[in-house]
């Protein structure tokens, strides 16, 4: 059957099982947009290409399926670079198709031409410039294969306009033939045996769980590993929900704003088992002082992560789920002196419990005295998160932007299921929340989707709420409006002698309620603690349009605990009310 290159592209996407894509048309993608009218694929028309990319990320993070975005050449393509970089950092499977000028015009500085394969080489797993329409079925199959296998990540297909118009035929490309690409799957039995040895004999083990566990859908395997070993778990920012916070052996989030027990457990561990985590600087603090007494087992599907930061004693290069299942089997099959005995860990667990009792996550719940001062409010941001958690269904998907609100969300929400937490971890992309929430709701329309956003973040991508209204995607946005770029303010407060430089925004410029309403959303505003729960309940009842709640929160709040940048995790700064406990 003869068809155009554009039709071949859309057909190839349909063959890959794509049900939705996020995009915005332009000159170079005109031929591609025509067959979309007749396609089974839903197209969500965003208002800015960055929104298309982040929405595709949100979709991918909650479904585990690749997110797809379609944008035009030139500025359309450069606008999607930030989402690509974000997805690359957070290992999110993404397939982005960019329009390109016609082949004959490439390299001539044609209108809306940009070398997007060159620009994105460092932020994609791979990219392609399609130079002949007959290559389309093969390239699309390769693109989805690479995006979703091994360590997942973003790929980009650059699609010249004349290739879209070329007459071609479509045939099933068959299995992909990529001689240079064969991600590891099964773990080396010897490495598993060595890891099992270390773990079984450990006196102070910690399972250091990262986003790879979520990507590999390994939560059940992880639960079995905890069951058989009795080892406690820390879940990194990317892994919140991979292991339930409600489990007695879940210590919560480690790292720069991790809780005291999670941070200190790693520091004191004798065996640290890294599962799909990458020793990020926000987790390790000063690397030389990180977990100094620990033997390290590092499980990762990406060989390049092994020894990048910390040289492991045992390396397992494999799919995380396969590796954890093999580890469970290896440990369960032992008997006698070699068998795992969770009761041996009782002193360690008692120590952890003691830390948890002394250093719980706390905040100053009391209203600041004279709550009328500049930026003061009786509404504490952490209180909003707690109320939100209490008043929403257990399987609610929580999305966040980047900054103080993100840390409070990660700390104070209780995550009990994987893929219920969507945030920008590695790149730290402000403005991620609104479009990512839209993508998450498209991927899981059955779930309640709340985004916790900062006022600074919200202003970066709020226009996508127009998309949400127009496409009837009822997301809910809680703005923790403290009138500041709060995390930068916190650093200026702590490390720059309270010399605040260019961090003040404004609580009411813009007027978030009016803005929300002008975008077709319901806008609500909360000034006092008593209004918090009623506003959340009102928002929960609205299911026919997006809701934005402008929570006026206390701008003086700091995120605690905190490990200052470059410091050892031993020098963790706990909440002022707990600082006496450290002595």
């Amino acid at each position: 059957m003869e068809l155009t290159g554009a039709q071949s592209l859309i057909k190839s996407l349909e063959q890959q099982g794509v049900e939705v894509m996020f995009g915005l048309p332009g000159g170079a993608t005109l031929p591609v947009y025509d067959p979309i009218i007749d396609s089974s694929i839903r197209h969500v028309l965003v208002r800015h290409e960055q929104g298309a990319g982040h929405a595709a990320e949100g979709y991918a993070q909650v479904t585990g399926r690749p997110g797809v975005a379609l944008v035009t050449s030139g500025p359309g393509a450069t606008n999607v670079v930030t989402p690509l970089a974000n997805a690359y950092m957070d290992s999110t499977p993404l397939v982005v198709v960019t329009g390109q000028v016609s082949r004959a015009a490439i390299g001539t500085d044609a209108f809306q031409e940009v070398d997007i394969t060159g620009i994105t080489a460092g932020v994609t797993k791979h990219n392609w410039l399609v130079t002949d329409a007959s290559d389309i079925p093969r390239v699309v199959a390769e693109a989805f294969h690479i995006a979703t296998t091994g360590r997942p990540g973003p790929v980009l297909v650059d699609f010249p306009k004349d290739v879209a118009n070329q007459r071609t035929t479509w045939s099933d490309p068959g299995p992909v033939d990529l001689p240079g690409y064969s991600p590891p799957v099964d773990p080396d039995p010897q490495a598993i045996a060595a890891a099992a040895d270390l773990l079984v004999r450990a006196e102070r083990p910690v399972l250091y769980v990262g986003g790879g566990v979520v990507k590999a859908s390994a939560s059940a395997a992880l639960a079995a590993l905890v069951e058989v070993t009795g080892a406690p778990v820390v879940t990194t920012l990317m892994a919140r929900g991979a292991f339930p916070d409600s489990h007695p052996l879940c210590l919560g989030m480690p790292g720069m704003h991790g809780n005291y027990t999670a941070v200190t457990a790693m520091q004191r561990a004798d065996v640290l088992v890294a599962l799909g985590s990458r020793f990020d600087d926000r987790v390790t603090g000063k690397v030389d002082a990180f977990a100094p007494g620990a033997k390290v087992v590092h499980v990762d599907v990406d060989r390049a992560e092994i020894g990048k930061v910390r040289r492991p004693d045992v390396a397992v290069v494999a799919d995380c789920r396969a590796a954890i299942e093999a580890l469970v089997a290896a440990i369960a099959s032992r008997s006698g002196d070699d068998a795992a005995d969770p009761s041996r860990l009782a002193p360690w667990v008692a120590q952890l419990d003691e830390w948890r009792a002394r250093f719980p996550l706390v905040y100053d719940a009391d209203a600041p005295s004279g709550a009328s001062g500049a930026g003061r409010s009786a509404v504490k941001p952490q209180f909003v998160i707690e109320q939100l958690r209490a008043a929403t269904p257990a399987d609610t998907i929580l999305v966040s932007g980047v900054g103080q609100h993100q840390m409070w969300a990660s700390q104070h929400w209780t995550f009990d299921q994987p893929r219920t937490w969507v945030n920008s971890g590695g790149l730290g992309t402000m403005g991620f929340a609104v479009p990512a929430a839209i993508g998450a709701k498209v991927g899981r329309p059955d779930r309640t989707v709340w985004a916790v956003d900062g006022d600074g973040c919200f202003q970066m991508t709020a226009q996508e709420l127009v998309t949400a209204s127009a496409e009837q995607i009822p997301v809910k946005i809680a703005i923790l409006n403290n009138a500041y770029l709060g995390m930068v303010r916190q650093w200026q407060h702590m490390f720059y002698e309270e010399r605040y430089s260019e961090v003040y925004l404004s609580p009411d410029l813009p007027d978030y309620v009016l803005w929300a309403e002008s975008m077709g959303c319901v806008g609500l505003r909360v000034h006092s603690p008593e209004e918090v729960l009623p506003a959340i309940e009102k928002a929960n009842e609205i299911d026919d349009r997006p809701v934005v709640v402008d929570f006026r929160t206390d701008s003086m709040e700091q995120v605690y605990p905190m490990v200052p940048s470059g410091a050892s995790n031993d020098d963790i700064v706990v909440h002022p009310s707990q600082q006496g406990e450290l002595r």
Partner: protein
Amino acid sequence: MSARREPVGTGRVVPMRAAAGEPHGAARLRHHVVTLLVENKAGVLVRVAGLFARRGFNIFSLAVAPTHDPRFSRISIVVDVESAPLEQVVDQLDKLVNVVEITELHPLEAREAELLLLTVSADAVSRSQVIQLAEVFGARVVDVGTDALTVRFASSPEEIDDFEEVMRPYGIRELQRTGRIALPKLVRED
């Protein structure tokens, strides 16, 4: 460490020398030779080079050509870096979809070869000396001008260094080296 290739004057290049106090060629042992079997596709070289550039590693020499299998090319790269960061680069090179195989060769475990073209001043007085020296090395004169000769020399990088040094007093006018290519030394039974 001593300077290796320093541009002097108008784009001329002085030959590589060992560091002062080191035996000749010792500087070379700091070099790492990485050879990659890659798919013969557009854009592969820039992806490979990009991983070095990102870290500020200078590529000392580079040779790319097809192999016996037309689907693949072989890239030989010489870099002067510490081992630890290089290991990280090699791991990341391995992640490139178009890179099929990577071998890191220590100079002592490799058969290396390079090709040199060199134009040297050779007037009526010096011409016969230059030709004689070329013959001693096994180099061939491939072009003859009024007061200069162009010589072609294929050998190990160390011999090429020597040859350059021997030619230098006569006045090197132009010089082009291909960059080294390398294959692992074969195992021989005793």
